[in-house]
């Protein structure tokens, strides 16, 4: 979503993005003229008249589980976004029975929060797991 019109979205997709992504952008490119939606989400920069790089993960109940906002010159890390969605999906499927520690990615150990884990995280999880 940006402040550009749907007409400009079409031009950008058809003339540039289709050369970078086969078949063009697969998801809806939304228009937020005037930045009204961006204002509500806290990502509209009134001075510049544009939206900053805000990214929101919204779960099936419509709840915001996470967000990240960057200034224009630095791009996002798509893999990290996907990792976060996978983590939120795992937590949701376990109905809160599992939590994903720092550095978690699919296949790595989760934690089972509970009275028996208090003070015992060091027994089941090593700091290096945050980095590998």
């Amino acid at each position, binding site marked *: 979503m940006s402040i550009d019109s749907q007409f400009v979205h079409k031009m950008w997709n058809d003339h540039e993005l289709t050369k970078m992504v086969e078949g063009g952008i697969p998801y809806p490119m939304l228009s937020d003229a005037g930045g009204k939606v961006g204002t509500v989400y806290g990502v509209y920069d009134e001075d510049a008249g544009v939206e900053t790089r805000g990214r929101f993960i919204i779960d099936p109940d419509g709840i915001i589980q996470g967000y990240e906002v960057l200034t224009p010159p630095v791009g996002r890390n798509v893999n990290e976004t996907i990792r976060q*969605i996978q983590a939120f999906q795992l937590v949701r499927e376990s109905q809160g029975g599992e939590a994903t520690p720092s550095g978690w990615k699919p296949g790595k150990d989760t934690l089972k929060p509970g009275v028996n884990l208090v003070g015992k995280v060091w027994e089941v999880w090593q700091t290096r797991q945050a980095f590998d």
Partner: protein
Amino acid sequence: MAEQAVGCARPTGGPVGEETNSRQTQEQQNVKEEPTMIKVGKKAPDFTAPGYHKGEFISVRLSDYLGKWVLLCFYPGDFTFV
């Protein structure tokens, strides 16, 4: 006319010679509006927006996606480089 360096922020202009007035207006607005930042764990504000999707102009309502995971991304503008 001077050539302008093109960065990743979309270049913008603005009115000339109205500085004092517009500042006052801004200050008045600041007093009235309390900025509320989005909070995790809270409902995502619903919205409708026109859009472009695979060759068609469409209208999207966020709440139509209830039951699915949604990734909502904002960006400064089409044809910006990043």
